[in-house]
């Protein structure tokens, strides 16, 4: 390291080297931040500045996930318009229709408050900015900050200055992080990852210095993190684990005690300030490890204190007595509390982290979200490219000089790679540590191979001679790399890898992560771009043509969009807090009309919205999600909705002529294919998503009537018919109408015939 810096000094000409390097580093960091921001602007440039949901359906063939920029946007608007206090007490009666939602108490307010504060600061500086632009550009802005935080974190790990810069650059453009922070993805993760990295930086700083101040700062940023993202539980468990491992390694010191206890005491109180979190840190088992380690470190500190007064033998005796006593008491207390139900059991999402099959069996609502699916192996390479194979090397290098902070890196690496394997979404928490480890490995390589080739031959031969004289046999493998050829090869190949990485990141960002799911882009045969804007067309139709409080029923994926873009009340939305209510919608969708209609009436539904991709080949449509609706409904009404009935005798999920009667009578099927065959010549109707022929006869809808179908048939909206004026049921009414028509036709025919005669 000294060699590298001295050689750099030589390069930068002596005394001015230090400040020049400092300046250079600042410029590089700013450039990295700028690049990080710029590479996230694809979607704004290509489409317009709209809030969009990130669409992972390209990778995992399911459907857009439950991230909720539209809701966040709506909440931010509410915050800006009505002020902080009414935001805090916000009861939203336009979602979850009959129930409403205590929104102020059930969200993480960090994101909205952040953009609200930015808005007001800009207003104060007399820069008139629309709140929408702040929301769209918040994520790229914070990703620039994340790169800076990454630099700070990595600089704590390594003495090499290049490691920090490399890590910052990796973090700036790694697709795993870009996936959630492109312009317009106004989501909690946008600021949460910055907070995550920065909290870890402060924590490392606290452990290194052992000062209350750093611990308190860690706690403050932890509190901010808690206010911003549910993933704060990761920090809540990682820091205690780090401390625990340090204790087990016999590395207890007053620094660890000071930083941990300060963080825990302040951080827990801070996290309880958020109404949504409330008493969870005391009650929920997810937080118990932190409490346990807090107790443990008190005991260890006391034991360490007592040890000062005693020789070893007696100390051990005392220690055994103490340990037995406290463990007995603690265990009894824990059992008592768990049995009496004071401590809540582990939450379902937590179980699904350990047993990947758990969610599918017990909580279909969690399993139905594609971001909760296990990660496919190519996704690692897709999201991290060559960082993923540098990652183990970096972790290995941490083992080589194992200080407290390196222990942290190792624990973080192990935990997050497991979690990333379990859930696609947690790739996000893996990305920072991969960047750190890869930067450590790469800076190690570059420091050895690139820098030594630079200094003038004198210095090189001098060091050469010294080394070879003193420790020829041991130093040989290190010192042996002198030929410019091998250096050039290694440096060149690293450069090529880096360039490839940049190219890959740009490609991924531009192609996979920058398309808003509400606007689909496709290529025409001549290569020009064609934009399919059915979603916005339909939402605009709803906004213009329906009553202000018309209730729209759709599957929950579209709830936030309808609320945000069409501004109409919805039954269920992406905040899946009430499983029963979602199952009700699922039941209405998957049952026969006679069953569904009472449900629709009971819930005041005016319009039903379905997404149908059959004409366009849009795979994320409702029929492909249909089985999840069935499963969720079956979870509540196992007698009335049965998943088996939707499969053919051979276990196939079919929508063509061989579809089961249950399937063909289900509301969802009818709404999807209603009148669809009229687009095609007789007998030629094809569903392009499922690649099958569609029955030649249109399904008959009695209780609904078609209200709107978008240009490419992606969105179809049906109006729920009112009760029949004559008190008939809809079946009879429709049959009667048809009969009447026929009669009328014959009557018309009759007179005409008569007249001609």
């Amino acid at each position: 390291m000294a060699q590298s810096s001295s050689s750099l000094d030589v390069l930068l000409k002596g005394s001015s080297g230090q400040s020049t390097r400092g300046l250079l580093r600042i410029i590089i960091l700013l450039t990295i931040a700028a690049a990080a921001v710029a590479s996230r602007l694809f979607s704004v440039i290509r489409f317009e500045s709209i809030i969009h949901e990130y669409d992972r359906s390209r990778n995992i063939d399911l459907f857009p996930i439950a991230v909720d920029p539209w809701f966040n946007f709506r909440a931010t608007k509410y915050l800006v318009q009505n002020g902080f206090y009414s935001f805090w007490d916000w009861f939203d009666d336009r979602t979850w229709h009959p129930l409403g939602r205590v929104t102020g108490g059930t969200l993480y307010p960090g994101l909205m408050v952040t953009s609200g504060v930015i808005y007001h600061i800009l207003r104060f500086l007399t820069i008139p900015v629309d709140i929408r632009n702040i929301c769209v550009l918040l994520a790229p802005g914070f990703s620039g900050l994340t790169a800076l935080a990454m630099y700070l974190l990595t600089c704590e790990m390594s003495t090499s200055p290049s490691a920090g810069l490399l890590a910052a650059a990796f973090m700036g453009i790694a697709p795993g992080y870009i996936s959630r922070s492109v312009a317009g993805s106004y989501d909690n993760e946008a600021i949460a990852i910055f907070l995550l990295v920065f909290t870890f930086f402060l924590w490392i700083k606290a452990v290194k210095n052992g000062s209350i101040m750093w611990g308190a700062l860690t706690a403050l940023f932890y509190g901010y993190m808690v206010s911003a993202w549910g993933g704060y539980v990761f920090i809540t468990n990682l820091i205690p684990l780090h401390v625990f491992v340090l204790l087990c390694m016999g590395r207890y010191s007053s620094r660890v005690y000071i930083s941990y206890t300060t963080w825990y005491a302040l951080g827990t109180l801070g996290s309880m300030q958020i109404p949504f979190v409330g008493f969870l840190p005391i009650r929920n088992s997810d937080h118990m490890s932190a409490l346990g380690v807090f107790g443990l470190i008190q005991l260890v500190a006391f034991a360490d204190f007592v040890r000062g007064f005693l020789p070893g033998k007696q100390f051990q005796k005392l220690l055994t007595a103490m340990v037995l006593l406290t463990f007995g008491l603690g265990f009894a207390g824990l059992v008592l509390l768990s049995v009496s139900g004071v401590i809540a059991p582990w939450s379902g999402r937590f179980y699904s982290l350990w047993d990947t099959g758990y969610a599918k069996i017990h909580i279909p609502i969690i399993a139905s979200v594609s971001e909760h699916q296990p990660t496919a192996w190519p996704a690692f390479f897709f999201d991290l490219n060559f960082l993923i194979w540098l990652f183990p090397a970096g972790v290995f290098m941490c083992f080589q000089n194992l200080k407290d902070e390196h222990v942290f890196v190792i624990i973080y690496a192990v935990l997050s790679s497991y979690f990333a394997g379990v859930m696609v979404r947690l790739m996000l928490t893996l990305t920072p540590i991969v960047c750190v480890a890869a930067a450590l490995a790469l800076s190690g390589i570059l420091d050895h191979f690139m820098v030594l080739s630079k200094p003038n031959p004198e210095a090189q031969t001098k060091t050469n001679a010294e080394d070879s004289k003193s420790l020829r046999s041991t130093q040989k493998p290190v010192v042996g790399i002198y030929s410019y050829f091998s250096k050039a090869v290694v440096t060149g190949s690293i450069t090529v890898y880096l360039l490839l990485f940049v190219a890959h990141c740009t490609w991924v960002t531009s192609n996979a992560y920058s398309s808003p799911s509400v606007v689909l882009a496709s290529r025409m045969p001549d290569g020009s771009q064609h934009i399919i804007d059915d979603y916005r067309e339909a939402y605009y139709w709803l906004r213009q043509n329906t009553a202000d409080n018309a209730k729209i029923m759709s599957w929950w994926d579209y709830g936030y969009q309808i609320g945000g873009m069409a501004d109409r009340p919805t039954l269920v939305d992406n905040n899946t807090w009430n499983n029963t209510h979602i199952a009700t919608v699922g039941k209405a969708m998957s049952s026969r009309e006679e069953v569904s209609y009472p449900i629709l009436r009971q819930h005041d539904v005016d319009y039903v919205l379905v997404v149908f991709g059959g004409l366009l080949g849009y795979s994320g449509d409702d029929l492909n999600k249909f089985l999840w609706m069935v499963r969720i409904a079956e979870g509540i009404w196992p007698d009335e909705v049965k998943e088996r009935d939707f499969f053919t005798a051979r276990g196939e999920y079919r929508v063509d002529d061989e579809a089961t009667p249950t399937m063909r009578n289900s509301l969802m099927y009818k709404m999807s294919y209603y009148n669809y065959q009229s687009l095609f010549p007789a007998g030629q109707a094809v569903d392009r998503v499922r690649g099958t022929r569609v029955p030649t006869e249109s399904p008959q809808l009695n209780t609904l009537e078609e209200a709107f179908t978008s240009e490419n048939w992606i969105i179809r909206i049906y109006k729920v018919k009112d009760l029949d004026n004559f008190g008939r049921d809809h079946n009879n009414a429709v049959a009667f109408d048809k009969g009447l028509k026929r009669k009328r036709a014959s009557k018309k025919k009759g007179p005409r015939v008569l007249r001609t005669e």
Partner: protein
Amino acid sequence: MPAKRHAASTTSAPAPVTPATLSSGPSTLKTNASAAAIAQHVWEQYLATTPQRTLLLDAFMAFLVLVGGLQFLYCVLAGNYPFNAFLSGFSAAVGQFVLTASLRMQTSDSGSGSSSKPSSKGKNARFADDNEDQGSGTSHERAFADYIFGSLILHFFCINFIN
């Protein structure tokens, strides 16, 4: 010898033993002394070696333990109805205790460096730490300023949480 051990294990009469051990240092404590005797010994040692200022901190910490314990007792016996209030009161006590303990560690590390308190490992770590950056216990003023900073945040949170 057996008689003596017996006497110690009943914990009724360790007093005649310990003053003698105290005067001649910890090495005279019998290797097979009972836990109670050892605890007694530790107590005597503690009173003898701790400086006045640290004792003051310790008294404060003992007071905080008392306050926290009382609140917890109240919560168990009389119910936790204003749970916010109980939590913030209790965590104020715990947090202040922890902060004070941290302050005590930082100030007594450098203050009584001659004592045999820190273990070899801890000493090494601290030594390396002092070399690298202005670590724990470089200045009492810094430690105290940190302490006040931490306490301010703590009490702000508590007051905000108390309802």
